[in-house]
């Protein structure tokens, strides 16, 4: 019965491990759509809007959400493949970009693996060289880089004697994805962003790659950001999960809290849209109707309100903030007026309101 949370936080070792490896603050990325005679901006896709989250060292943060909700854009902005319109990215305590650490340094620490295992590899380069290439570009001698590539190939379960000299088109999808993972590991990153990294794989191969990711994480002390539209896979692999809807974070929290006690109406609908695996107990009603609305001109206020059963006037007026309410786990937060006692939503419980 010694440590309260306050005591623990004053222990320097714990403060160290609690510092997030990555934090993203108020990130915004809008894409102008140009058209017309003079290429003027006609509309704006609000792909990522005021997104904030943290990833702690050694944890896996999952991101789920439907197509177009801004998952990939978030990852790409972190990697600086797109420039953010606003917000900042802090890596291991240091701001990236202006006045902070350089993007080049971030790239040594953060790597990304994409869904499309085919296009990520150079078709005219043997895969051993593909893996070594990044290190060579950072000044590692060719021989050393190739030797290291061979070690990485065996780490991802491919015999270097058989595979190092093959070309990507000679590999299966699962093998290519292993090569992509080996390539991401070559620069000894601390954080890997996996964007639908297993989505194109068959189930039996997906299970192998998930096993591999789990092994590598323990062995190399990695931290993962795991993006997927497969809710089952995210539940299995993640410690915490972030739910996105039309460019906004609607809910975030420890995976078991969110899956077993989802708060946001969208998260609830999403989870109960998953097919039942039991033919004797089938889904009888679709939780949502229609498709997600267009991220061009998203609805005012809460972006989910056009599909939400609980929407009221307040939902169209103001955008609900992502908040941990007092009846929730402190690390579980939701952006919904129905859960905010002061919002004026008729279903919001008034009990915890200050007055």
């Amino acid at each position, binding site marked *: 019965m010694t440590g309260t949370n306050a005591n623990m936080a004053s222990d320097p070792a714990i403060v160290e491990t609690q510092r997030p490896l990555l934090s993203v603050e108020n990130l915004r990325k809008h894409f102008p759509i140009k058209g017309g005679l003079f290429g003027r901006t006609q509309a704006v896709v609000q792909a990522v809007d005021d997104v904030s989250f943290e990833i702690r060292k050694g944890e896996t943060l999952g991101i789920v959400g439907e197509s177009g909700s801004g998952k990939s854009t978030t990852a790409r902005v972190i990697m600086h493949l797109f420039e953010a319109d606003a917000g900042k990215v802090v890596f291991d305590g240091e701001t990236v970009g202006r006045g902070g650490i350089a993007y080049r340094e971030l790239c040594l620490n953060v790597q990304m693996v994409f869904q499309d295992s085919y296009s990520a590899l150079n078709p005219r380069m043997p895969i051993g060289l593909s893996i070594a290439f990044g290190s060579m570009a950072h000044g590692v001698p060719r021989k050393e880089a190739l030797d290291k590539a061979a070690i990485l190939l065996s780490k991802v379960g491919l015999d270097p004697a058989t595979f190092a000299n093959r070309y990507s088109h000679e590999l299966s999808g699962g093998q290519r994805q292993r090569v992509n993972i080996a390539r991401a590991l070559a620069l000894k990153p601390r954080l890997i962003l996996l964007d639908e990294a297993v989505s194109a794989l068959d189930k*039996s191969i997906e299970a192998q790659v*998930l096993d591999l990711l789990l092994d590598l994480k323990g062995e190399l002390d990695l931290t993962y950001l795991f993006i997927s539209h497969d809710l*089952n896979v995210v539940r299995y692999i993640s410690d915490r999960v972030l739910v996105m809807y039309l460019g906004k974070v609607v809910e975030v929290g420890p995976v078991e809290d969110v899956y077993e006690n989802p708060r946001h109406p969208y998260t609830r609908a999403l989870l109960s849209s998953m*097919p039942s*695996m*039991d*033919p004797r107990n089938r889904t009888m009603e679709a939780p*949502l109707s229609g498709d*997600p609305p267009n991220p061009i001109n998203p609805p005012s206020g809460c972006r989910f309100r056009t599909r939400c059963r609980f929407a009221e006037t307040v939902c169209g007026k103001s955008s609900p903030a992502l908040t941990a309410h007092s009846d929730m786990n402190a690390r579980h937060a939701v952006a919904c007026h129905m859960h905010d006692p002061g919002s004026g939503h008729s279903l919001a419980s008034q009990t915890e309101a200050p007055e």
Partner: protein
Amino acid sequence: MNREKILSVEDLSVRFKSDEGIVNAVSDVSFELAHGEALGILGESGSGKSVTLRTIIGLLPRNRTDIRGRVRFDGREIQDLSNDEMNAIRGARIAMVFQEPMVAFDPVFTVGEQIAETIVRHDGSSWADANRRALDLLELVQIPSAKRRLASYPHEMSGGMLQRSMIALALSCGPQLLLADEPTTALDVSVQIQIILLLRELQRELGMSVILVTHDVGVAAEISDRLAVMYAGRIVETGTAAEMIEAPCHPYTDGLLSSTVLNATKGKKLNAIPGAPPDLIALPRECSFAPRCRHVQQQCLSGIPRLEPFGKGRATRCLRVSEGQLELQSANPAL
């Protein structure tokens, strides 16, 4: 009264000549489908699911393709029909929906025009009747503001709406058999479940028989009465959906179901099936799952196992299970 099956497929084999050699896409596939029944064909990429469907509806290119076996639809031998006879059946009595609705529609005509055109072509109805039917169909597949949507072009519709329109197109001539090839794979989960429920409802209301092809056990479980699992071009197990998912009787199905992430312990590795499916150009003369099977024994390598009955209404292509040497323990962890 009508005891005859709507469809029976007997010893179907499909081989393609390619530059690398002969691709054994489908081998010795046999199954039957009752009137009003929904069969799910489950299998990984390249296992022969789409080729099986395309053979039934006569959509395979005839050159460089060698098709053996018999497909009997509503009392007629499909393989013996002329092109004209097949064209009359396709679309009208057997219809197909695909993963990508864009392939079913021509981008330069409205959705309403295309549905009406199909009705006029097959039924010889008047355009006025066909237009009325097109509207009924869009309402049947629950497209909001159906009347306005008749005049939409395919690119003006969202993914879910286009998928509904393709189903309307497929239903336009009242087919007895609907073939659905991964109809929900490209959709988000919240839209996928809507399409699943729609297909289930239509099947029941219209009394249609359905074959659904998917690689997703959950999707198959929501729709199918019976399941057939394909591996490397062969059916390795069939049975009722409920029984199979509860207790599979082939090591491949068992491996797939017991390595799913559902209910797997967090942080613990999945019990993944090692290796990859065999090369269809060089299929071994043994159980094609043998190289990946954790129960393999010498006898499994002595020849290709046959699909043998296993209890009531079930069958397995595993020698050891058929002979009672192997009891698969792992029930589906998801239940």
